[in-house]
């Protein structure tokens, strides 16, 4: 497969100062690739929520971004505590966020659900005490929802 664009961004867990930096960088890159506004926005939200979760909960992680003619593929891998019950974590309002996270205005338990809503496909794999993997596809062809 020939990629229009592919790149990786490493994210350091606990580095709240930088929270969102990689996502803004990714958004800039996508804008230059002439991704439509709506797709750009959904991708930016997905990446930002993922970045915040790595910073909030994991030790370190990587966001891989690949853009093809018709899809945006985002894969997120982290080394960290993992998620014991994914179904529970996906529920609106469920959060184990610390005070530090809540002070920033986050930790309402909306993030994973927001990622799901903004993607066309989402798969989550997680292993406790190892890490979490998200595999996300956003189709570049807009469709009715």
């Amino acid at each position, binding site marked *: 497969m020939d990629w229009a664009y592919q790149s990786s961004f490493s994210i350091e867990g606990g580095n709240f100062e930088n*929270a*969102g930096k990689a996502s803004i960088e990714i958004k800039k890159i996508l804008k230059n690739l002439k991704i439509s*506004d709506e797709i750009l926005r959904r991708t930016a939200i997905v990446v930002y929520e993922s970045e915040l979760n790595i910073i909030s909960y994991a030790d370190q992680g990587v966001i891989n971004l690949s853009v093809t003619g018709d899809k945006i593929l985002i894969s997120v891998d982290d080394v960290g505590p993992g998620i014991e019950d994914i179904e529970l974590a996906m529920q609106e309002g469920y959060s184990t966020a610390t005070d530090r996270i809540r002070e920033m*205005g986050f930790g309402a338990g909306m*993030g994973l659900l927001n990622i799901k*809503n903004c993607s066309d496909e989402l798969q989550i794999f997680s292993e406790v005490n190892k890490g979490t993997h998200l595999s996300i596809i956003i189709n570049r062809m807009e469709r009715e929802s």
Partner: protein
Amino acid sequence: MNLRDIVKILDAKVLVGEDRLDTVVKTAFSADLMSDVLAFAKPGSLIITGLTIHQVVRTASILDAVGLLIVRGKIPGRETLELARELDIPVLSTRYILFETSGRLYAHGIVGCVEKIEKFNCRQ
């Protein structure tokens, strides 16, 4: 209505974006919870909040907000304002509380970027 009108209505200070006051504002989203802003705000909205940390600016940038309006007389720190300048997000500050701020803007024709949350969905 543009940012300059809002400055007048709310007796606000322009902290960043003196040159961007012609930006048109039609819709807004008020919240102190960035998780909700991210989940529910629509592009092109003014984000009204009492939070002043730098994360608010990054959230506004991700969402293509037209600007940030800080309520309750709070003034963000230098780092937050520098980030806003870098990301080109206008920042205003008003002494009115969130309720008064929203009410006054609504009375002048600005509406919520969503009216009700019917179904949680980020697509427009």
